[in-house]
């Protein structure tokens, strides 16, 4: 009987946890489909509308531009960071070169630097170069937080791959570069994909850099949220619609690689 109680208690707790996590997200999704008037009521009885999405994509909000900025900035950052990080991670993982520990520590320790420290000089530099409010500026600064993180993560994945296959390939007649291309990359592909998605999420959600470095042309989605705070007050239904636009692509990615995702979260950190 007691065991029965514990069993139900555990299920109840699981439900509670899921509700606490899902509720804020669900509420935002609901609000995104409400008319402005309904948004201010707590009633679940409303007729859903797509009007908010139409509004945010139209003038003056032009969410489409922000989506484009976010997509470009995140994609380009991933395309630069991940290949470079993969090579470095392989080197850190497989070779015992002089100064390796120091270099690795140096790269890791940059993770502990607050973003404000990095963005100050960049703000001044981009101001001089006339690069403020450009996607290029955002990409450069995003590389700063993303690259060390991705090196760390991919190294965790490569460390977990046994070296046997690589050695076999070298004996079979492959050069080191050939080994990387034929053996390491295909074997590390799930890890590299996971790291890419992590990298994409970090960049996509990045707020501080975009807040400081963009004004109008290069504004990304998270910063775009702030613009729905007007003199007429906060436009919650529009904010929610924009929130849905930020959230949906990321949720899809995270859920697609769900298994690797949790492994990626703990990769490196636990070791």
């Amino acid at each position, binding site marked *: 009987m007691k065991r029965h109680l514990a069993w139900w208690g555990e299920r109840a707790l699981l439900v509670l946890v899921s509700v606490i996590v899902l509720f804020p997200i669900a509420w935002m999704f609901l609000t995104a489909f409400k008319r402005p008037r309904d948004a201010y009521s707590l009633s679940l009885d409303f007729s859903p509308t797509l009007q908010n999405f139409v509004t945010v994509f139209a003038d003056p909000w032009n969410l489409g531009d922000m989506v484009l900025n976010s997509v470009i900035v995140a994609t380009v950052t991933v395309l630069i960071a991940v290949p470079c990080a993969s090579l470095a991670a392989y080197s850190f993982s497989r070779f015992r070169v002089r100064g390796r520990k120091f270099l690795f520590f140096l790269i890791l320790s940059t993770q502990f630097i607050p973003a404000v420290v990095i963005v100050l000089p960049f703000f001044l530099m981009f101001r001089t170069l006339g690069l403020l409010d450009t996607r290029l500026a955002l990409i450069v600064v995003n590389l700063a937080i993303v690259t060390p993180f991705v090196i760390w993560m991919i190294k965790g994945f490569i460390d977990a791959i*046994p070296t*046997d*296959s690589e*050695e*076999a*390939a*070298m*004996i*079979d*007649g*492959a*050069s080191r570069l*050939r080994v990387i291309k*034929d*053996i390491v990359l*295909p*074997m590390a592909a799930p890890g590299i994909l996971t790291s890419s998605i992590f990298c994409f999420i970090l960049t996509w959600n990045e707020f501080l850099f975009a807040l400081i470095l963009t004004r109008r042309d290069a504004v990304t989605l998270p910063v775009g949220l702030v613009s729905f705070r007007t003199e007429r007050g906060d436009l919650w239904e529009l904010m929610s619609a924009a929130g849905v636009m930020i959230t949906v692509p990321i949720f899809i990615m995270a859920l697609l690689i769900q298994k690797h995702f949790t492994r990626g979260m703990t990769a490196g950190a636990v070791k």
Partner: protein
Amino acid sequence: MADVRLVDIEKKYGNFLAVPQLNLTIEDGEFLVLLGPSGCGKTTTMRMIAGLEEITSGDIEIAGKRINDKPPKDRDIAMVFQNYGLYPHMTVRQNIDYPLKLRGVDRAARTRRVQETAEKVELEALLERRPSELSGGQRQRVALARAIVRTPSIFLMDEPLSNLDAKLRVTMRAELKHLHHELGVTTVYVTHDQMEAMTLASRIAIMREGRIVQLDTPKRIYSEPADLFVAGFIGSPSMNLIDGAIAGGVFTAPGVSFPVDQPDRDDVVLGIRPEDLEISTAPDAPVIGKLYALELTGESTLVTLRTGANSVCARGPADHEAEINAPCHFVPKPGARVHLFDRPSGHRLDGLSAKGQTL
């Protein structure tokens, strides 16, 4: 085909000397087994031959050519790894084909040779599978096929059977032996399993702490172990080793007395294999003690007695029965060998080194 010569090779990891000044010549067509407990340097030695590990000093020659600085791919070797080292993202066919592809063999020849090799190791039906869809024994065969597909001048095998279950290991052992006979390629084989070493090797090099303790044929290693380490390592159950002293031409220890043809001295270890002892009722038997344990192995019974601080084991008939703690006597079988070792150094005692003493 080729011979391999290791001349004064040395391997250091930082300050740790893994292999000091090793010399070894592996003859053309030979099946040489490097045998020893884990951490004895046998795998390091093989990996130095493969070029996967740099040598700190010394020379490695294959077929008379110094290959110290050549990368693995230019050494004309093939290797079978303990965990097989298969390419998990390739099919069995692609796995076997990969070394040929890297060497630029033309497509038609490649298809033919992959097919032939697959037949040799009975993998024809599995060519389109991935390694993850194979059993341990099948993976082992793929690793083997990948090694033999391009007929290298040397095979290196690093504990290739250690991940297989006991039954499969015996079957694969016979296959390896047959394959070596058929191809005649010089083979270096690393294992910690003395049974594998005994059954496969033309010669065994027993290693300990980076040094070769004894290099000889399996037969001689069994019958004339060079020191206490080899004596205890080879044979199952292992040789009885009894501490004692020689006085007046008799080796004595509590409950043990053997006539030996040696001058008087202390600190001697007498070794005698369980299969060289038999159970007796003779009151003047050389080994007398109390029965400690009976273990039936199937074809025989292992009888262990205790006397003083020593346990002595003999291989008796399968139907032997007795009470635990009852008095128990062992006598050497006709033609049995006793081995004498110097306790401090562990070396086999001079004058016996050639043959051992036959009783």
